[in-house]
């Protein structure tokens, strides 16, 4: 057994040296494709964190007319409470609105002084269970007596969702192409190895070496390339997380940042990716060239 392992490692090392350039290209491609795949996951996770955080704050503001009648007010209040999409409702009086306005613009006293406490409308602040259901709420409330305007912040979120989706799909697309090229390149190193050793392989078959014995060195070579590429990708993602997410993002805003846990969760996926790429590539290469 020890001798056999010795043989495998020797053959694999020879193979890698012989195809150093193609092996390098294969490893690099695996690295880039898996890095993109993992990067897309991290970016997606990051955007989700931001969306979650923002969703917390998103509310629909139902501004009321100044001279709202008591019955209209009661009816609106009951209507909102009976809606299944609504999570909570807070009533903000004109006075409270003015306080918030003063707080918000305390650096511009001129502006504050020019607005009378009575100028700001009272409103219902409605929190939705799902911010995407704004349309339903709006349709039901629109035209009801006592309502001035209905506003909502979900537009911004929708744009964020769209950006996130575009980014992720783009990265997935590029990563898929890169994975295909990685498979092609690894298959090529295996094929070149088989070609370089066709004489040995012919003799091995003649003297009765098993198929697996002949294949194992090529399989190890492919796995080495796949797994090394995957490890490089993990290293790359670690750097991306620590430099970009941890240093750069907090500097621009108080946003939640992806954690080491998020990265660790990706490690098995990326390693598995490297292994699968290697297995598919060697299968493709050996299917045609290593039959008895």
């Amino acid at each position, binding site marked *: 057994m020890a*001798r056999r392992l010795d043989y495998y490692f020797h053959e694999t090392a020879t193979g890698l040296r012989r195809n150093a350039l193609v092996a390098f290209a294969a490893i690099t491609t695996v690295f880039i494709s898996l890095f993109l795949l993992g990067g897309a996951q991290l970016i997606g996770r990051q955007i989700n964190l931001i969306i979650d955080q923002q969703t917390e704050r998103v509310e629909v503001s139902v501004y009321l007319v100044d001279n709202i009648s008591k019955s209209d007010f009661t009816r609106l209040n009951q209507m909102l409470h009976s809606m299944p999409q609504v999570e909570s409702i807070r009533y903000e009086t004109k006075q409270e609105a003015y306080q918030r306005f003063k707080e918000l613009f305390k650096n511009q006293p001129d502006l504050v002084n020019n607005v009378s406490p009575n100028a700001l409308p009272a409103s219902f602040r409605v929190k939705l269970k799902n911010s995407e259901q704004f349309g339903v709420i709006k349709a039901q409330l629109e035209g009801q007596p006592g309502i001035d305007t209905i506003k909502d912040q979900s537009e911004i979120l929708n744009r964020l969702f769209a950006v996130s989706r575009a980014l992720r799909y783009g990265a997935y697309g590029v990563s898929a192409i890169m994975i295909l090229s990685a498979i092609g390149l690894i298959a090529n190193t295996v094929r070149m190895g088989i070609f370089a050793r066709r004489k040995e392989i012919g*003799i091995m078959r003649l*003297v*009765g070496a098993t*198929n697996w014995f002949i294949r194992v060195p090529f399989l190890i070579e492919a796995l080495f390339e796949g797994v090394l590429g995957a490890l490089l990708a993990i290293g790359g993602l670690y750097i991306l997380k620590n430099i970009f997410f941890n240093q750069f993002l907090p500097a621009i805003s108080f946003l939640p940042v992806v954690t080491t846990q998020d990265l660790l969760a990706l490690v098995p996926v990326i390693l598995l990716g490297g292994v699968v790429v290697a297995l598919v590539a060697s299968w493709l290469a050996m299917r045609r060239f290593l039959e008895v």
Partner: protein
Amino acid sequence: MIKFQNVTKTYKESVVALEDVSLEISKGEFVFIVGPSGSGKSTFIRLLLKEEEPTAGSLWVAGKNVTRLSRWKIPELRRNLGTVFQDFKLLPNKTVFQNVAFALEVIGKQKHIIDQRVPEIIELVGLGEKLNNLPEELSGGEQQRVSIARAFVNRPLILLADEPTGNLDPATSVEIMKLLDRINRIGTTVIMATHDNAIVDAMRRRVIELDDGRVIRDQSRGVYGYGA
């Protein structure tokens, strides 16, 4: 040891390589397969190694039906068959020792067995002095001896030799034949495809003559051709 039963091998476009061949070769026999180029000698050997399948009929090697043998059992079959070719098929970057040891390494034999058996067999073929030489430093006859050592090192039941003297001068060929004869006398069945009539005539062993894929003669203690 070997049995062919109505074996026919046709390549695409109805090129017939062997046609309805039935014969038996017993353990310990020395058999020449003779005939002109394209008469089916090589196909005969390729069928035994299961490198090709017969179009019709069955054949047995060492009691096993080769036609029905599953693919994963082919290595086991080939470990019972030593093979020697006209072009030696040695690995140029390996020494004599390494070339012979290679045959044992790749079937997973342990190092101590290899270290014991390889020098023994190289001694047997008369190359004890050249253990560490590369093939290019050897004469053609010596290279063929290495290839015979490699074919025989795993003690196969049968030795298949496809034109083993085809690249050698007559004097060297005689030496190779002496070696094959010795291997045969140890108890190994030897099957040799050749069109070297001098050798066949000198050896006086069983001769199976093929022509256009048919057995036209099967003669014990035969010569190359009738009255030739």
